[in-house]
Every structure is written in structure tokens, then in C-alpha cells.
């Protein structure tokens, strides 16, 4: 995917906004990101993931209808610059976003999911192709 997706409808954004908690919980349920970890470590990673997913949900709900990619591009920069210092590489973030998108598809109506999913796909594409400056 290369082009920035068209803004979703207000109805799609409203459903996405209202069902954020379900989407985040479903993402955590589907994720195998911390399956190999046990006890406290698993709890810490799950907590960080939930916080990150909640933030991601709020960002997308906030700006999904804003024309132009600047704000989401800024989030990509955040993901590739800051998140590695929180223990999440761009590859991990992209994998979590893919699971998040899966959860969107399983939670929203098919019509609304089809409008939101391209935004997440665009984010994944940008994160996986972004230069890794600032990491380490």
C-alpha cells in the first residue's frame, strides 16, 4: 500500500470510537506477543501493550477523518524513534498493529471495518519501511 487512504465515514469512526475497549481487549486476546513470558514479565508486557493499544486507538479515532497523512506520519516517527526505548522495535509494533487490525475486523461491522482497516495497513506499511534513525 502506498497512497494515504480516504477518510472513513463518520459512522465508521463512531463505531470504532465507541468499541475501542472491545478492540483493545480482542487484540490482547489474539496476540501471542507475550505468550512465552511468565508471571511478572508477562504482566508488564501486557500492561504496556494495553496502554499502547489504547493510545493507538485514541489517535486513530481522533484523526482518522483529518485529510492528509501528517499526523499519522508523526505517530510513525514516534513509533520508530521513541518506542524502541520502551522495548518495542518497529517490527514488534507492526506485528501488534496487524493483530489490532485483525481485532478491528472481528469487532466492527464489515462495512465499517473495511473503512478503518486501510488506515492501520498504511501505518504498518510506513513503520516497516521507515528508516530506523534514532534507535539504539
Amino acid at each position, binding site marked *: 500500500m502506498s497512497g494515504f487512504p480516504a477518510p472513513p465515514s463518520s459512522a465508521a469512526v463512531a463505531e470504532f*470510537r465507541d468499541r475501542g475497549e472491545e478492540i483493545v481487549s480482542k487484540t490482547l486476546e489474539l496476540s501471542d506477543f507475550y505468550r512465552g513470558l511468565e508471571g511478572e514479565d508477562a504482566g508488564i508486557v501486557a500492561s504496556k501493550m494495553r496502554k499502547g493499544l489504547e*493510545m493507538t486507538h485514541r*489517535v486513530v479515532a*481522533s*484523526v482518522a477523518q*483529518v485529510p*492528509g497523512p*501528517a*499526523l499519522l506520519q508523526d505517530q510513525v516517527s514516534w513509533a520508530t524513534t521513541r518506542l524502541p526505548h520502551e522495548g518495542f522495535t518497529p517490527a514488534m509494533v507492526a506485528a501488534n498493529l496487524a493483530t489490532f487490525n485483525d481485532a478491528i475486523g472481528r469487532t466492527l461491522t464489515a462495512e465499517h471495518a473495511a473503512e478503518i482497516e486501510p488506515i492501520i495497513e498504511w501505518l504498518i506499511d510506513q513503520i516497516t519501511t521507515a528508516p530506523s534513525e534514532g534507535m539504539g
Partner: protein
Amino acid sequence: MKKSGPDDRTFSGNSTTVSLASVAGEYLETILAGDRRHAVDLVTEVADSGIPIKQIYTDVFQQCQFELGRLWEENRITVAKEHLATAITQLAMSQLYNRFDFADRVGKKMVAACVGGELHEIGLRMVADFFELDGWNTHYLGANTPIREVVEMAFDIGADIVALSTSMTFNVEKVRDAVEAIRTYRQPGGGPKILVGGRPFNVEPTLWQYVGADYFAASATGAAESVGKLSHHSASVEGERR
């Protein structure tokens, strides 16, 4: 950011070529070191030399806040250091208040607030201080203020402007909710004008229109200038009505 040297501390309010870059460099080192007393001494000394307060805000405080954000994002300073440095700057701003050279009162009121859990308040405080310097009566509510409280205060005091700020993109939605709440409270179509600002609005310059605001400013200076035009316009409109 430029490092300070022994000869860089000379500054003059009368000089048109004065640069506060070296002061900013020294100030940044000072606040990161947690030296409150020296930080306050440094900026009060600059203010007492005749440098306008607004220039100290933009060239020292604002530049240092940008730099703190960058250092934190790159993991070069901790959250604790960032909070320490920001708290010192808030103290320094307070210390400068009694040096403000206020303009005559213009009979205008502002309510300024961060909504929706937004904790990054220092930029908005700069905006409020700039308006105060320009003769406005500002009601600065600070971080994480409930939307309803902002709206009620704005209407209770008869605010001319409500200034809303967010640094976090995920709070844009809350700013939009606040704008809508102001627009629909008591007198739909009337009420105060709305000014928005903060990082997301700088990143996407059309965002202010998306949230339904009347004005956007990329900086405290820009905010005062753009609303200053309103002030003059309103004054002339009121004059015509009389």
C-alpha cells in the same frame, strides 16, 4: 542548542542583534542539573537587563521545552529529568510575573485550558501570559480540566476567547468535543471565539478547521498576534454599535 561561553552572557535589551541562544544553552544545562536557584537568577538577570519577557519566553523557555521533548524522545534524558526541568521553568515563569510590563487593560477576557487528560500545560501558560501582558484578563485553568468546567467558566465570566491546547495527538478528539460543547452551550452560534494550539496543530496546519476552532497559532507569539487582530476588530465593531 548553542553552548554558553564566558563571553556569551553579555546581552542588552537595547540591542536589535541580541541573541538569547547562549542563555538558552546555559539555562538548559542548569534546569537539567536541577539547579533551581541558578535557573531563576539567570532569567531574572536577563529580564532586568531589559530583554522583553516575551523574548525570554520564546527564545529561552520555549526553545528549552522543545529541546527537552527531543532529548526525551531520543531517550537521552529520563521522564524524571524532563519533569524536573519543566517544573523549574514553571517556577522561573512565576518569578518573572512581577517583572511583567503590562499593557493597559483592553477589557477582554480569556479562559485557557488543557482538556481531556492533557498534562502538557506549559505552552498554554505561555499563551495566557502573553495575553496578560497585552492587557487581557486571563483565567488560566492549566492541565486536565473537565470540558464542562471550561465551558461554564467561559460563559460565567463572559470570555471573549477560550484557548485550548493539546500536545498529544490522541487528545485532538477531546479538543473537538470541547469546541462543540462551547458552540452549543446556552447560546448556539454565540459565545466566545476559540483559539487552539499545540503540537498536533503545528504538525497538521488544517487541523484547527477540523476541530471547528476560530483561530490557530503555532506559538504564543502567533496566538497573541492573531487574536490581537480580533481585539482591534471587535473594538471597532463595538464602537460602531454605540
